């Protein structure tokens, strides 16, 4: 039953009282109970809290005072602090942490009446592209190749979010995107994900990875649903000095605009060697769909694209090494007892951080250390300026850009684990937008020969998510993507 609803249609059914928030929530909790052993999307499930929130929503609906998300069961990536509910960032070092306060994004959703089913799995501290770096076990993609049941990765770092929404365990979910952590898992799981403009959503109460890149955003099964959830998550927050003091537009209305007269750019540097022909074909198909709807397709150049990943893997680890210095075993989280303070720090951090997080802290420490700062960190900040200028120049000619979201479909668990750099290459198409702070969405557009979903990425100008929603909705209508993953709630179940 859960997959038959969208956020929008469930909201309409709740308002008509054809279903109660308690029934809808119970159906989703049942889906979690049935599918969780196969998918492992959650770190913490909060059924009692969810049912209490559902009852409150039913009361508000009965009074006619329901908020925009009243009674809608969603789930939260386990990097958003939730008051009284364990928040781990999928790390041993935060395993015992119960926040005494609520993140602004989740507080906004609670204000609007949302029901929280629980906290979703991710790569430790959001560092990864497969959700295999979680200290609490990998999440399994609900999709499988046509001819095999080999477990595939859901992408990452927000892999639990994507898998939960794709399989029907939640109507929608929150994620965070630092270099592609919303768009890449959305593509691998056949759903919609948007990384808004840097500053659109508050980072207050979000466990920090790389503060100049991190941005919360929604996952949903339709473009309209993503617009509804982003409308609730977004907004200025005095508690985050980088949050933008701008009104939140009506994103859902923008999905109805159409693309007639829009100029859509095709960045030639995104045609990389070794890209599978079916991704190339889907990209061309996407451009044809937009042209048929009245958009004009324009070739553009983003000359520094190839340096995006290397820039990212200096800037992000540098910020991470600084941000993660707070995990010292003194104020919260894991502590490994020791006889002196230095041993306590070193033993706690050795026991608390997984292999990838340790690698990135060490890389970050190296590139910020005396003698290397100019050669690595300062250089990367200058290349970052050039990458931003590439986008600024392109958006002088076009209204949005269309690219593939990823260079491949979902891969098997264990693949790409032998070489960190190979894993990093998954983010080749998503990282440049993060570096420039511009918004980007992945829309499911087709299946590969193995029956796995492939996404197209729409990029837009700073604070112009509305054009992205217009283009994303046009692609969604043209693609008519109705395929469902193999591991899911059955119709009628």
């Amino acid at each position, binding site marked *: 039953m859960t997959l038959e609803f969208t956020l929008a249609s469930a909201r309409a059914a709740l308002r008509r009282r054809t279903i109660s928030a308690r029934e809808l929530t119970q159906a989703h909790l049942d889906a979690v109970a049935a599918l969780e052993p196969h998918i492992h999307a959650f770190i913490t499930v909060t059924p009692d809290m969810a049912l209490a929130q559902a009852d409150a929503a039913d009361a508000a609906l009965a009074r006619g005072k329901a908020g925009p998300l009243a009674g809608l069961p969603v789930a939260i990536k386990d990097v958003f602090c939730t008051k009284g509910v364990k928040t781990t960032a999928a790390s041993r070092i935060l395993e015992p942490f119960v926040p005494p306060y609520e993140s602004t994004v989740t507080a906004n959703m609670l204000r609007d009446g949302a029901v929280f089913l629980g906290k979703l799995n991710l790569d430790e501290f959001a560092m990864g592209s497969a959700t295999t770096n979680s200290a609490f076990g990998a999440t399994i993609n609900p999709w499988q190749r046509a001819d095999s049941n080999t477990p595939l990765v859901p992408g990452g770092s927000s892999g639990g979010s994507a898998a939960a929404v794709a399989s029907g365990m939640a109507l929608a979910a929150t994620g965070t995107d630092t270099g592609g952590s919303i768009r890449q898992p959305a593509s691998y799981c056949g759903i919609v994900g948007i990384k808004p403009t840097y500053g659109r959503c508050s980072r207050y109460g979000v466990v920090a990875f790389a503060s100049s890149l991190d941005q919360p955003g929604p996952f949903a099964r339709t473009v309209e649903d993503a617009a509804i959830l982003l409308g609730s998550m977004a907004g200025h927050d005095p508690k985050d000095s980088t949050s933008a003091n701008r009104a939140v537009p009506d994103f859902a209305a923008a999905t109805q605009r159409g693309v007639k007269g829009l100029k859509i750019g095709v960045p030639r540097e995104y045609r990389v060697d070794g890209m599978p022909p079916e991704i190339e074909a889907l990209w061309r198909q996407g451009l044809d769909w937009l042209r048929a709807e009245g958009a004009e397709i324009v070739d553009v150049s983003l000359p520094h694209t190839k340096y995006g990943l*290397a820039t990212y893997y200096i800037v992000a680890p540098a910020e991470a090494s600084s941000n993660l210095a707070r995990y010292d075993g003194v104020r919260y989280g894991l502590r490994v007892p020791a006889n002196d303070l230095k041993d306590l720090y070193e033993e706690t951090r050795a026991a608390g951080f997984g292999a990838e997080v340790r690698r990135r802290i060490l890389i970050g420490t190296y590139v910020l250390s005396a003698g290397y700062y100019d050669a690595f960190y300062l250089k990367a900040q*200058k290349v970052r300026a050039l990458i931003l200028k590439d986008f600024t120049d392109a958006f002088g000619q076009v209204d949005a850009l269309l690219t593939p979201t990823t260079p491949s479909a979902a891969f098997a668990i264990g693949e790409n684990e032998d070489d960190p750099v190979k894993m990093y290459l998954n983010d080749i198409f998503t990282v440049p937008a993060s570096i420039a702070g511009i918004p980007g969405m992945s829309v499911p557009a087709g299946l590969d020969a193995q029956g796995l979903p492939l996404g197209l990425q729409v990029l837009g100008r700073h604070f112009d998510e509305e054009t992205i929603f217009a283009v994303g909705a046009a692609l969604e209508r043209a693609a008519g993507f109705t395929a469902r993953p193999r591991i899911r709630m059955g119709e009628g179940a």
Partner: protein
Amino acid sequence: MSSSSVPLDPDTVRRIARLARIRLAEKDVAQLQGELGAILGWIEQLNEVDVSGVDPLANIGAAAMTMREDVVTDGNQTDAVLANAPARSGPFFTVPKVVE
């Protein structure tokens, strides 16, 4: 894509780990020498880029930082602040003795 590796000697790996306050087992040093060297070799491709005259971009948020009134907005939260402490004594965090 550059595939050259930056050679890191074991002492450099140990020094970075000390700066990062992460204890390394001796067996991890050799492995990290290889992994970190490969990552640093890969990111050295930025040497190809001409950045003369380019100002470094530290933060993407173009707007200037806003100031607020310098007043207390929150407080008297001792128990909430200490609720997650691995060890406490009254209203204090506790750590192993620092000064002999």
